[in-house]
């Protein structure tokens, strides 16, 4: 480490410079976007009544934080999303185990899964509301539905892609089917499962938004839909910004999870 050649040092410095430049450009874009928005709103080019503006959004943020209503809305949306996300992933993975186990069932259900996968699950939201009622459970079930089929299919694909020879190895040790699942197929599919989690974060938010648009009395989706109806665009824009931040944070969290758990699997390649 101590004997770094001149060429290597210059290379590392160039690499570092390039990294900083990219970071800088990213920040500039963000700031320019908000500055332009604010300036055009101030100059009257954009009507703040329908476009809102960063300063109005900020004021709104302060107000709603002060009376605590913002945190209630965020909390509700976050809870619904997490509940949908966790139950969708769990149910999808569990179903994948059943279909891996039973080859005939897998073949029988194949065309139905293809159709269900292509069907926009949010189209089912009104039916769910009729069945379950005008409440939070409907929203969570809608979020669950958006992620469950994708999870099932991607985890099942992961199960089926486990090297045949790894299973053969377990069988040379006399492994039973539950043992093959527990010792080989499931751990080998951890990357596939985490990948499904990554997709599900986004999908669960979609489900929750549609659900909240339709039934909710609280939550960020409710704020968006209600705000647009009463022309409180500050609420709408603030909610959208917060949603963007929440989705990014959740994605980051899953990415950190991925890094932690799939380190061993990655090293193999």
């Amino acid at each position, binding site marked *: 480490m101590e004997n770094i050649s001149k060429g290597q040092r210059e290379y590392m410095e160039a690499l570092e410079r390039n990294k900083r430049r990219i970071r800088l450009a990213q920040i500039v874009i963000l700031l320019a976007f908000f500055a332009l928005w604010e300036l055009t709103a101030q100059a009257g080019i954009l009507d703040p009544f329908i476009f809102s503006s960063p300063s109005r959004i900020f004021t709104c943020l302060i107000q709603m934080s002060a009376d605590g209503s913002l945190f209630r809305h965020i909390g509700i949306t976050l809870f619904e999303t997490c509940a949908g996300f966790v139950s969708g992933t769990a149910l999808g993975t569990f179903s994948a185990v059943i279909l891996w186990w039973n080859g005939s069932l897998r073949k029988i259900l194949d065309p139905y899964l293809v159709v269900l996968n292509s069907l926009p699950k949010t189209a089912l939201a009104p039916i769910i509301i009729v069945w379950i009622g005008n409440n939070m459970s409907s929203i969570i079930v809608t979020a669950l539905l958006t992620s469950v089929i994708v999870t099932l299919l991607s985890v099942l694909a992961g199960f089926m892609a486990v*090297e045949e*020879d*790894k299973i*053969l*190895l*377990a*069988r*040379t*040790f*006399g*492994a039973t089917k539950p*043992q093959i699942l527990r*010792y*080989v197929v499931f*751990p*080998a599919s*951890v990357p596939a499962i985490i990948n499904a989690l990554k997709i599900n974060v986004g999908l669960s938010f979609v489900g929750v938004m549609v659900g909240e648009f339709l039934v909710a009395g609280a939550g960020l989706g409710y704020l968006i839909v209600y705000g647009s109806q009463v022309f409180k665009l500050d609420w709408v824009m603030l909610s959208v910004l917060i949603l963007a931040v929440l989705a990014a944070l959740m994605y980051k969290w899953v990415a950190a999870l991925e890094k932690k758990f799939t380190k*061993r*699997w990655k*090293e*193999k390649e």
Partner: protein
Amino acid sequence: MPNILEVQNLSLSYYSPQGETKALENISFSVKKGEFLSIVGPSGSGKSTLLSVLAGILTPTEGCVAVAEGAKTGYMLQKDHLFEWRTIEKNILLGLELTGNLTAGTREYALNLMGQYGLSGFRNRYPSQLSGGMRQRAALIRTLALRPEILLLDEPFSALDYQTRLHVSDDIVSIIKSQRKTAILVTHDISEAVALSHRVIVLSKRPARIKAQFGIQFSLPPNNSIEAREAPEFKDYFNKIWKELDF
């Protein structure tokens, strides 16, 4: 020496929508305790199938395999298939865990083997941190941990590059011999078969029949398989076997 394994009139057919494929036809041979037997044949000749039958993973259509009482078989595959999510120690204990034989005693036996063959320092490492040769050693110890009498080796060196392969095959075989195990090696590499074994069986194209057998004896017994490759008789055996192999 008594026979530890006897194969009698073994035949096996595969069935598929395309029709029936005869993989093995009327194969009989026996293996003595402590013997190192190689089976060579053209690729796709059913060598691996034969080994799977010996291991009891496949059931023959006809014929039978008799193993001496109390003798267990252990299998080694082409690749080491160490599980990348388990440490080397946990990988080595896998067979014991799966067969429900993991006790303090068997665990210590496995850890001793690890120490004996220079893997102690890698106990808590992961497979990706080991060289190809070390991985293959770990795979062998995983098999030996179950104390098999007969080792079935399915081209265990074919995934390695040539140089590594010479060293690893010598290494693995000397471990097997030091443990006084019986071994049946399936390979398509004639030199490997001649250098490592006491006897070589040549299989025909599919359906596999036994075409020829050669006892390998060197006038000056070599110290290891690398030396064996330089013995004067080596190329004679090589040529004889090569002529028997049809491609």
